């Protein structure tokens, strides 16, 4: 068990800096998810913690000890790879025991640990099979078993579920979460899937273009996104953005509709963010949408269209079944404290 401290961490390949001044404190036993679109540097960051990539500047501490110069095996970490990286010529048992064998543990101790991990993951009956005889989900378990037997201070997961089918992914997601809570090992998990991120993480680090956009609990990220990027990334369907002018608690939309906000004492151009699920149908509401397409999802209905009188795309998510044909106008209201305001230039959240 250990905490992890990232201080002013950067990574450059030649003159190109791909990670910029990453700061982050991860507490003992916490489950941290690093999330972002592809190419944002999230895997690089994880690999730096693992010791598979060098650190260009800054410092990584695990358990209060600087590990920048340590070999991966000396950092007391275990990693689960996206393609599992199981050794194909070794049986499941040998795969799990390999690291322990190198650390020269006694045969009895190795057996005890392998069988304990196999019991936790319910893979005891596959112990003598080769990886190619296993299904994707079983390989995934073996990869986790290999991490567990090492009894490390930190688990690192590099998109471990992206090779599984959708149903199995949901099931394994729950299992990973339960396992981590049971073992209480500090974990860092990289994914591009925001649902996975929201459900797994105690806290989420949202990366974009090598910068940390926001680092907080899933609910903080949902309720108070720090930037337009986070607001658009977290939540599905994505938040609607419309430029507006804000004047002391009232925002005027491009079609002159007025929406009250909870941001007093501010005036100027802003970007206004409205979550589709916060738009409530109300015939007297200020926001009017020309609906062009309807998606029935069963539990709720998505209405796609544009803000009336403009061509700003809007989506509203309405509970239950709504029968609406294309080309109809619907009106919505929204609670003032659910209206998000962002600076038009910096795209940062305006403080509320």
């Amino acid at each position, binding site marked *: 068990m250990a905490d992890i401290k990232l201080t002013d961490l950067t990574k450059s390949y030649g003159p190109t800096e791909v990670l910029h001044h990453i700061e982050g404190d991860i507490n003992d036993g916490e489950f941290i998810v690093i999330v972002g679109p592809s190419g944002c540097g999230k895997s690089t960051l994880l690999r730096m913690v*693992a*010791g*598979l990539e060098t650190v260009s500047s800054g410092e990584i501490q695990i358990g209060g000890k600087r590990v920048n110069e340590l*070999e*991966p*095996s000396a950092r007391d*970490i*275990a*990693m689960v*790879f*996206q*393609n599992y*990286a199981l*050794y*194909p*010529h070794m049986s499941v048992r040998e795969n799990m025991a*390999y*690291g322990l064998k*190198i*650390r020269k543990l006694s045969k009895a101790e190795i057996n005890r640990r392998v069988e304990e991990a196999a019991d936790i993951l319910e893979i005891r009956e596959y112990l003598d099979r080769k990886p*190619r005889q296993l299904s994707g989900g079983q390989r995934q378990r073996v990869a986790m078993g290999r991490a567990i037997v090492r009894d490390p201070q930190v688990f690192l997961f590099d998109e471990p579920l992206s090779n599984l089918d959708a149903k199995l992914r949901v099931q394994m997601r729950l299992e990973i979460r339960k396992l981590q809570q049971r073992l209480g090992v500090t974990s860092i998990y990289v994914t591009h899937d925001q649902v996975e991120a929201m459900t797994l993480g105690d806290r989420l680090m949202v990366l974009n273009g090598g910068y940390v956009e926001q680092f907080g609990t899933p609910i903080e990220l949902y309720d108070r996104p720090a930037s337009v990027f986070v607001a658009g990334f977290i939540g599905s369907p994505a938040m609607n953005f419309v430029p507006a002018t804000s004047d002391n608690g009232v925002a005027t939309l491009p079609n002159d509709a007025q929406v009250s906000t909870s941001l007093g004492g501010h005036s100027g151009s802003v970007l206004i963010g409205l979550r589709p699920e916060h738009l409530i149908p109300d015939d007297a509401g200020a926001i009017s949408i020309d609906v062009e397409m309807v998606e029935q999802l069963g539990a709720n209905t998505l209405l796609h269209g544009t803000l009336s009188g403009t061509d700003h795309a809007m989506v509203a998510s309405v509970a239950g079944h709504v029968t609406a044909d294309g080309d109809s106008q619907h009106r919505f209201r929204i609670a003032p404290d659910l209206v998000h305001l962002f600076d038009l230039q910096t795209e940062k959240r305006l403080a509320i």
Partner: protein
Amino acid sequence: MVENRPLANFITHLVLVLGVIAIALPIWITFVAATHDEIRMAQAPLPLWPGNQLWINLKQTLFGTGLSGTETAPVWLMLFNSLSMALMISLGKIAISLLSAFAIVYFKFPFRMTCFWMIFITLMLPVEVRILPTFEVVANLGMLNSYWGLSIPLIASATATFMFRQVFLTVPDEMLESARIDGAGPMRFFWDILLPLSRTNIAALFVILFIFGWNQYLWPLLITTDTSMTTIVMSIKQMLEAAEQSPQWNIIMTTALLAMIPPIFVVISMQKLFVQGLTETDK
């Protein structure tokens, strides 16, 4: 692709049968010749069915002093020489190519690509091209008439290095990373992960290189003068022109038959691995 067209079937089978005959008939004649005595073999027409002299011919060929009227080494010694040479060449080639490919793929050192291309360029320098300077070097090192002299100059292999490089490049990077996290050092990774993963490729290469080594003719001819170092492939040719008398076909053909056995044994015993090594892509 399963079609039933009698004419096409007939033609394809005809081609196959002709191919088999073209390859198998000479071997059959060799075998038949090895089962008759010298007198029968000197008469026309050539026998097409086996005689009863195989055992006597084998004994005379393996342990006798070769053809009557010449002083050559017994054939069992030649077989042993050939086997030693072929094994040293093929195992030496595999060991050196594995290590150099490992260095080129997994280590970053200055002039890495230069080294690779230097190795690669030696493809253009087979032993026949550099035979005089190589002979000079081997002679100066005092390796004439020795197993070292027979095998060492043929061991360096660009083809095998290149092949292992391609094999190593298909091993996912995560395998190395995973081994690093497990605490395996470079040589440990090489032994525990890389070698087992290249097993089928090594076997396939061994088959090819063994036959290459076994069939060496020019180089052994050049550097062995002592009859006790003669290889079997050399000796077949020498037997044909030995002495003034007519060739003793029964002995020559028995020798040829014996010379075929080890390569055939290698191919058959490693056939499964050989095919896997050439076709398997899943790592």
